[in-house]
C-alpha cells in the first residue's frame, strides 16, 4: 500500500466515522428537541515573498482554512461538539469531545480537544485574530524556514490538538476570574525532534505508553463596560511528555502571556519556551555537549479599530532555536538561529461576517536572507 493510498484510506475512515456520529447525534438531538448549533469559518490567503529562493522553499501561494463546528446540548450539563478543519494538511478534527459541565469550578472534557496553551489558543481561528499569520511561536506551517531541516515550525504550533481528558473551571476572587485547567493527553510525537505533520496525518493515538500532560492558569480582571481599562489578563501554561516511540526523549514547554484592553486599544504579549531532547544515537554535525535544544520566542501586538469598518494591527515577533542542528539540517543553520518579524495589517469588514485581511511583513532571520512579504486574504465566519 502506498503512502498516498494509506492516507486516503485513513481519511475515508475518519470521514465515514465522523459522518455516522454526526448523523446519529443530529437525529437523536432533533427527536429529543435538543439544541444543535452550527458555526464555521472560511479563509483564503495569498502570500507573496520578495525573495524567490525563500519563496520556493516556503508555503507561499494560496492556502485555504475552512472549519465547521457542530455542538449538541445533550442535557443541561452535557455537550457534544466536533469541529472539522481543512487546511494545508487536509482534513482534520480539531475537536471531537464530550463535555460535562456541572459547576463553573468543575468541568470535564474528554475526547479530542484543543489543548489550552497560551492566550492565542483562544483566537487561533482566522476570524479570531486580525493578522493574516499566526505568531511565529505558534505557527503551524505558514512560515518561512519552518521546514524540519530548518526551524521545524514554532514552539507549540496551534491549535495543539490532542486526545485525552481535560479538567477545568473558574472561580472569582472579587472582580478577578481565575481560570484553571489540567489535562492528560497523548503528547507530542516524533522520531528525533517532534514530527508535527504526523500529529495531524496519522491515527489519533499516542506514539508511546507515556502520557503527556500539562495545565494552564489565567487571572482576568473582569472590567465593567465602558471604562478606560478593560479586561486585563495574565496567564501561564505548561505542557510536557515524551515524544519518541520508545518513550525516552522528552519535551517541556511553558509560556507566559498578558493582555490588556485600554480604551479602544488591545495590547497583547506572549512568551513561549520549549526544551526538546535529541537522540544520543544520531550523528550530529557539531561536537555534542548537550543532547537537547531549546526554542523560544515572543510576540507583542497592538490592535485598534479605525472607524466602523477597519481594524488595524501591529506586531513584532521573534523565534529562536538554540542547540544542535539535527543531522540533515540546512548547512546554514547554526547553533543559535533567530528570526525576527515586523508585521502591520488591516482588516476590512465591508459586510457582517465577511472580512478582508491585508498584511505586510518584514522578515529578518539570522541565518538566512531577509525579505518582505505581503498577505491578502478573504474570509468569513458564521
Amino acid at each position, binding site marked *: 500500500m502506498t503512502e498516498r493510498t494509506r492516507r486516503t484510506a485513513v481519511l475515508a475512515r475518519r470521514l465515514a466515522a465522523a459522518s455516522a456520529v454526526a448523523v446519529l447525534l443530529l437525529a437523536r438531538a432533533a427527536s429529543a428537541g435538543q*439544541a444543535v448549533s452550527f458555526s464555521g469559518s472560511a479563509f483564503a490567503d495569498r502570500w507573496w515573498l520578495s525573495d524567490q529562493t525563500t519563496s520556493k522553499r516556503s508555503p507561499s501561494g494560496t492556502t485555504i482554512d475552512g472549519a465547521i463546528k457542530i455542538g449538541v*446540548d445533550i442535557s443541561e450539563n452535557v455537550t457534544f461538539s466536533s469541529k472539522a478543519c481543512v487546511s494545508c494538511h487536509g482534513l482534520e478534527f480539531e475537536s471531537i469531545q464530550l463535555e460535562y459541565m456541572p459547576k463553573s469550578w468543575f468541568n470535564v472534557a474528554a475526547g479530542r480537544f484543543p489543548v489550552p496553551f497560551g492566550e492565542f489558543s483562544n483566537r487561533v481561528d482566522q476570524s479570531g485574530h486580525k493578522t493574516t499569520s499566526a505568531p511565529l511561536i505558534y505557527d503551524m506551517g505558514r512560515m518561512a524556514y519552518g521546514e524540519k531541516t530548518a526551524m521545524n515550525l514554532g514552539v507549540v504550533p496551534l491549535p495543539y490538538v490532542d486526545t485525552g481528558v481535560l479538567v477545568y473551571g473558574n472561580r472569582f476572587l472579587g472582580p478577578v*476570574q481565575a481560570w484553571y485547567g489540567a489535562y492528560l493527553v497523548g503528547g507530542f510525537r516524533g522520531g528525533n525532534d517532534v514530527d508535527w505533520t504526523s500529529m495531524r496525518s496519522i491515527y489519533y493515538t499516542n506514539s508511546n505508553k507515556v502520557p503527556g500532560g500539562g495545565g494552564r492558569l489565567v487571572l482576568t480582571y473582569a472590567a465593567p463596560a465602558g471604562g478606560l481599562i478593560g479586561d486585563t489578563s495574565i496567564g501561564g501554561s505548561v505542557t510536557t511528555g515524551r515524544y519518541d516511540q520508545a518513550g525516552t526523549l522528552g519535551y517541556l514547554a511553558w509560556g507566559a502571556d498578558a*493582555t490588556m484592553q485600554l480604551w479602544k486599544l488591545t495590547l497583547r504579549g506572549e512568551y513561549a519556551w520549549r526544551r526538546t531532547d535529541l537522540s544520543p544515537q544520531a550523528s550530529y554535525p557539531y561536537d555534542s555537549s548537550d543532547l537537547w535544544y531549546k526554542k523560544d520566542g515572543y510576540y507583542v501586538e497592538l490592535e485598534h479599530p479605525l472607524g*466602523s469598518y477597519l481594524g488595524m494591527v501591529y506586531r513584532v515577533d521573534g523565534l529562536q532555536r538554540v542547540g544542535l542542528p539535527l543531522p540533515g539540517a540546512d548547512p546554514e543553520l547554526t547553533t543559535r538561529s533567530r528570526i525576527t518579524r515586523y508585521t502591520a495589517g488591516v482588516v476590512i469588514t465591508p459586510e457582517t461576517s465577511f472580512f478582508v485581511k491585508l498584511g505586510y511583513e518584514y522578515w529578518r532571520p539570522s541565518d538566512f536572507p531577509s525579505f518582505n512579504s505581503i498577505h491578502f486574504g478573504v474570509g468569513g465566519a458564521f
Partner: protein
Amino acid sequence: MNALALAVLAALQLSLAAEPPVEPDPRDKGPDKIDVSSYPPEQKARYPLYEQKCAKCHPLARSINSRFTSAEWKRYMKRMARRPNAGVTDEQTQDIYEFLKYYSSTLGLQ
C-alpha cells in the same frame, strides 16, 4: 431601440417612486454591530458589555447571526463564560443573556 430604452427608464423611475420607505438596516452603525437605537434603555445599557466581552475571542457577527432562542442562549453562554480569559462575572453573564434574549425576541425567536 431608443423607444425601448425610454420605456425601461420610465418603468424603472415609476418602480423607484413606488418603492416603500426602506427599513433601517441593522448594519447602519457598521458591520458586526446591532443597531440598538430603538431598544429600551436597559438593553441599550447592556449592549457595550456584550460587545466588549464577546468580541474578545470571536467576531461579534458570530453571535449576531446565530439566531438562537433564549433557551439556546442560556446554554451557550454557560459554555462561553467558562472559557479561558472570558472574564465575565455571573452578573455580567446575566446582563449579556438578557440582552441576547431581547435581541432574539426582535428576530421573532422565543
